[in-house]
């Protein structure tokens, strides 16, 4: 053909393309490249025969090997779960933290399992380090609503607080103001009284007026000295730790509208051994009794 031009310097045919006078030589493709290309073609044909390859309208070509990555993942997860349960079952013998501390392997196992379970299930409300948020208890201090022993933590985990479980822990902070059980003035006086319990400065006259009201209304749960009662989940009012905040407006809101946070019962979602691991982990966060 007439357009086949030969480059005068190299003696090689050009493609006829020219950019600002620079012409492209029509060299053959490198041999290794061509061989690799052919291998890829052969590979792709074999692959299409053996493996799932082409989409259909309702399904797809399954391939001779009937390979399914989804089934592999499911099988691998089942294997993992089975193995994990065997290991975790060892935790069922644990009755107290003492049991665990005498067995370093068991301690390590429950701490590792507990940390991962805590991240998955608890951290959403109680924070990644267990530091809690307003309305969600801090788990690393030494102040417990329902008790900080291993058994108490385990029970709270199993049955929850005000949860949909027959054995759930129940305790109520009533809406004294809103429901008209206490007049406005008494609520305001109690705010001063409660502030003073944890060392805050408060109006002495209001405290005097509130003292009989506290003894009559609050002391049944929070105790005459305001130190709380763990069997009822009544918080200690004399320390500086507040679940809903210790400012006057927070205390007023508590007295006015009541409080009642919910901790789910975890037996429906976690196995017994998982709950043991979690209880050990929470106990070790710092506040365990």
């Amino acid at each position, binding site marked *: 053909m007439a357009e086949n031009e030969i480059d005068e310097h190299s003696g090689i045919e050009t493609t006829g393309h020219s950019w600002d006078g620079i012409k492209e030589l029509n*060299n*053959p493709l*490198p*041999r290794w490249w061509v061989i690799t290309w052919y291998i890829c073609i052969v590979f792709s044909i074999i692959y299409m025969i053996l493996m799932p390859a082409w989409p259909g309208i309702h399904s797809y070509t399954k391939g001779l090997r009937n390979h399914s990555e989804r089934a592999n993942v499911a099988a691998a997860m089942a294997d993992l779960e089975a193995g994990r349960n065997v290991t975790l079952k060892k935790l069922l013998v644990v009755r107290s933290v003492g049991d665990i*501390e005498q067995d*370093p392997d068991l*301690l390590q196992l429950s701490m590792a399992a507990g940390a991962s379970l805590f991240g998955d299930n608890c951290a959403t409300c109680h*924070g*990644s*380090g267990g*530091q809690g948020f307003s309305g969600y208890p*801090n788990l*690393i*201090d*030494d*102040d417990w609503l329902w008790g900080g022993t291993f058994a108490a933590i385990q029970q709270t985990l199993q049955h929850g607080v005000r949860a949909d479980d027959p054995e759930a822990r129940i305790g109520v902070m009533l809406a004294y103001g809103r429901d008209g059980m206490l007049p406005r003035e008494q609520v305001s006086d109690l705010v001063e009284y409660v502030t003073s319990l944890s060392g805050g400065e408060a109006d002495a006259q209001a405290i005097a007026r509130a003292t009989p009201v506290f003894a009559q209304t609050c002391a049944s749960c929070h105790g005459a000295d305001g130190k709380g009662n763990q069997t009822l989940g009544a918080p*200690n009012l004399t*320390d*500086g*730790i507040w679940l809903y905040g210790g400012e006057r407006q927070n205390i007023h809101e508590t007295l006015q509208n009541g409080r009642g946070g919910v901790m789910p019962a975890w037996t429906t979602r976690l196995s017994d051994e998982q709950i043991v691991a979690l209880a050990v982990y929470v106990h*070790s966060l*710092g506040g365990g009794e």
Partner: protein
Amino acid sequence: MVAREAAVGVERVDVEAVNSAPKRELYKAREPIYPKLVHGKFRTLKWGVLFATLGVYYALPWLRWARGPGEPDQAVLVDFPGQRFYFFFIEIWPDELYYVTGLLILGALALFLATALFGRVWCGYTCPQTVWTDLYIVVERLVEGDRNKRMRLASAPWSLNKISKKFAKHSLWLLIAMATGGAWVFYFHDAPTILPQLLLGRAPMSAYLFMGILTFTTYIFAGSMREQVCTFMCPWPRIQAALTDEETLQVTYREDRGEPRGAHKKGESWEGRGDCISCRACVAACPMGIDIRDGAQLECINCALCIDACDDIMKKVDRPTGLIAYDTDKNRELRAAGKKEAFNLIRPRTILYAFVLGLVAVMMAYGLSKRATIELNVLRDRTPPFVQLSSGSIRNAYTVKILNKANETRDLVLKVDAPDGAQISAIGETVEDGKIQINTESDSVHSVRLFVTLPQISITKPSVPVTISILDPQSGEEAANPTVFLSEGK
């Protein structure tokens, strides 16, 4: 009729330097090279290097080194699951990978020094590509015979004899390739355990994968690609030009002595002519398919086989040996100027390389001798940074990791230096006077969860220094880690 005789009793070899510069073409298929066996001092030296390097590679994983109970007894082992690297008396943890980096730097500097002194000695003698290609040519020669026989077999029509010879050759090659890939795997597993597993098909998939990759590369690189790996794939031929100078010893054809070349007839005088008799023995011996008489070339790996080939011929025609020899560019100039030749190995460049090499070696030896066998990492809890207790005290939590890098269990003392009034406690440990007795397993990490509690009255500022340290009372070895105690402050 071309004269077949280059000199009395010396036949001219009918060989083309297939990779010489004029024949160099990028789109040409490889032309096979049939290197002829030579004998001489460099060939002997190369046999020695071949046995030594291959011997070390294949045998090293089988060498045992007692380290104590619970530790692998393999002298050289890269233990990925256990995250350790064992090299005789040295044991390295992943955080000490800089020793490996140091080793690579040493290797690079040694290569620089060797190249500045003797040119491409690495390529010519010790490069795995050269060593395994040499080994494959040994097999080839064993099965098919030397150069002429191999060429005849290649051009012969297919026959039972040819098929059986080719089959034998490739089987042996594959066997060597598999042994090579297998030996690689031994460096990453306990060799006596993994060998039967490999043979019975019970070894882990990764072992077969790496064995497969190395079997393939050995077979292809040493069997069929050979000199192309050096010329087209390896970056070293390009880099080495920057490391050599006019005083570097390189395999050189002394053209001032050899030219004008030509066949030497019986009784002809050697006056007025060169010593090169155009016998092409040097070309026939060359595994790279070049002609050394064309001068220094990218393709030349300085394997010195042409020196042996030429010396052999020179002895036959009764001329001095060394027409092809290790020589420098400087000497060619000196000879041309009629001066005496001189070899100058001690030059600023080689002094510098040797100095840096020595410096790095000393630094590494020092670092290794001072290697700590105890380490302490302290991770302060960040969520939250501190917590208030019901008494009003403030508590900080720390996760303390104690690394016992020694091959023995040790009773260590963890000490916490905190401000006066601090209460110290740890999960599962007894604290006495700010000190905790800790029993660490050999070669392992021990983790302690530590709490420091300060009453409000002892807190002076938001950040108070706390030092956590670990001590081996027996050896006196100590490691400390300064951290802080955080609070809202006063």
